């Protein structure tokens, strides 16, 4: 589904990603871990098409298409979803209104009729139950005055509504208490299918107790330096990142 080859990206001339290689197949969950500043969030942003990053080398193929050639909105319409680490506030625009605009633009791109108000509402009801979100929250201004947990839950609700092929969760666990973490993870798990894939970007193993990954990758200095299964995450939890840093730094060639 997703194939990242030798991806290099920089911001204002400073290289952040220095050759990422990653293959993600349908039905898989990949966790990207790593110490602060290793490039985890940058990878998520580059995949979603954030403009301030310059891709200097490499390619990304998503379902047979050159992902990096597409505008951010077209990537979304092709089925790439990014759950933001810091969801953005849009005053005066309700989640409902926002999502209706989004969903209908996605549908138009895919050659589908727009959903009328009745159908949209029934779809919303269905997905609301899935992620245990209150309708009151959805009629408030998007993310404005939301608690950390409400924001993250709202992200997962949007994901449920837009039914993406590839979901990228960028530090979705940050700022969540245990209950919120469980609800959010449950939502993500319910949305998983044979046809979709998930990339979970996280700093801590905690989230991976709930969203169990098939593969774990450790990002350090803009490269994937170690890959393994979920046991790797447990090992990192126990030993921290220093042993990996040392391993990499000692073998690094200048």
């Amino acid at each position, binding site marked *: 589904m997703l194939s990242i080859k030798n991806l290099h990206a920089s911001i204002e001339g400073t290289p952040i990603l220095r050759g990422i290689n990653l293959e993600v197949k349908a039905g898989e969950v990949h966790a990207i871990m790593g110490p602060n500043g290793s490039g985890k969030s940058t990878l998520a942003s580059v995949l979603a098409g954030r403009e301030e990053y310059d891709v200097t080398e490499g390619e990304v193929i998503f379902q047979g298409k050159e992902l990096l050639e597409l*505008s951010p*909105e077209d990537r979304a319409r092709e089925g790439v979803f990014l759950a933001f680490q810091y969801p*953005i506030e*849009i005053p*005066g*625009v309700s989640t409902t209104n*926002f999502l209706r605009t989004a*969903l209908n*633009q996605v549908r138009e791109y895919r050659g589908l009729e727009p959903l009328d108000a009745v159908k949209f509402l029934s779809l919303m009801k269905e997905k609301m139950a899935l992620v245990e979100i209150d309708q009151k929250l959805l009629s408030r201004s998007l993310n404005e005055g939301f608690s950390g947990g409400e924001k993250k839950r709202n992200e997962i609700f949007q994901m449920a509504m837009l039914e993406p092929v590839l979901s990228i969760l960028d530090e979705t666990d940050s700022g969540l208490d245990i209950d919120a973490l469980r609800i959010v993870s449950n939502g993500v798990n319910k949305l998983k299918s044979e046809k979709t894939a998930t990339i979970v970007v996280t700093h801590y193993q905690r989230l991976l107790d709930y969203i169990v990954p098939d593969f774990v990758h450790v990002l350090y200095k803009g490269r994937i330096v170690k890959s393994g299964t979920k046991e790797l995450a447990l090992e990192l939890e126990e030993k921290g990142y220093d042993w990996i840093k040392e391993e990499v730094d000692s073998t690094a060639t200048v």
Partner: protein
Amino acid sequence: MSKDNQILEDLNSKEYEHGWSVNFETDEAPLGLNEDIIRWISTKKEEPTWLLEWRLKAFKTWQAMKEPEWANVHYAKMDLQALRYYSAPKQSKKPKNINEVDPELIAIYERLGISLNEQKRLQGIAIDVVLDSVSVATTFKETLGKLGIIFCSFSEAVKEHPELIQKYLGSVVPMTDNYYAALNAAVFSDGSFCYIPKGVRCPMELSTYFRINAANTGQFERTLIVADDSSYVSYLEGCTAPQRDENQLHAAVVEIYAGAHAEVKYSTVQNWFPGDKDGKGGIFNFVTKRGICAGDHSKISWTQVETGSAVTWKYPSCILKGDYSIGEFYSVAVTNNYQQADTGTKMIHIGKNTKSRIVSKGISAGKSQNSYRGQVQVMKRAHNARNFSQCDSLLMGDQCGAHTFPYIDIANPSAKVEHEATTSKIGEDQIFYCNQRGIATEDAVALIVNGYAKEVLNQLPMEFAVEAQKLLALTLEGSVG
């Protein structure tokens, strides 16, 4: 930053869609402004002597006045002697009702999306249409007449209801009020008049649609709304003009009188030609709008969506004379390209327990300048006056300007006045967030701007609100920063 500018430069704004004009035979005054022209207009309109004298007095006053320069706008002053002060489509005889109006004129309005055919109009809106200097048609006159509501052109009101005109004309905006109001008083040619009798709730929206067609012609119309005790009316105003290279002058006066327990809601969607993207042409919109809450418990509410005009100079105001009277001002002013707007309100608290509320949302894009100028005045006897003002500015790109000039003048210590102001930018973050959900950038801007202006748009009657939302999106098309 350079990327932003690139986008701003690359994407031209969408062309003004009402920029066309039509050739038809006109009846027009010679160019220039002097006493003879005023007499010419008055004769043309078969006016009574008292009105001619009123005009001439206004003209004398005006001659001694200077064009105001305190507003935060810069433009080359117009040569008022090079303008024409009267231009009217030639009609063989005065139409008695809508069926007798020249089909050619009706076609103009059809093209603007305004149907004058009462049968075709589903929405409950009665409309008076003013083309250049004269009112060409008023719909639903008979229906309204049954309730005692008078809704007609100003000229007709002068003939049919002289006692009302004499009583209220200039009672809210005196002829000597300011430079443009005095000019208007001297040369005004037509406009709308509306009277709601005691205890009557007007069952439909009343509306005036202004269109400037002729070149080198100023439009000077007057609207006078009188809501007698315990009555209610909602009034709408819309306007467009052809796209011309020269600036055109629109200097209108609107007066509202609200008796005890009466309520008047006045909504404007102003879409004059704003000039092209290089700042050439466009309407100078120098308008005086004021209402008086004359009776106790009366209420006047102004809602405006200002998207057009090259230069806007406009401060719809409320004189809160009656005890417990309420004044409201809700405004969205958008400027793009080289537009300049200096707009706001005045709330003058005279009566006891009077309340006012000001919500102003400025949106600046391109190289435009957008200023809010508002005054809250609490007089000595206005015990327990309350005011709440909120002035927000939204900036798009880094070449525009937003300015706020609040004046607060309190003479009674029991007054409570609150003022809140914010300035924000449409963030790349917000746009990216929308993009990431599949929303195209133009639509993202429309969504964000409409969200920002929601509090004001919610005040508009339904169909107008939809229209205004589209207009906001259209005005800002291509201005992503």
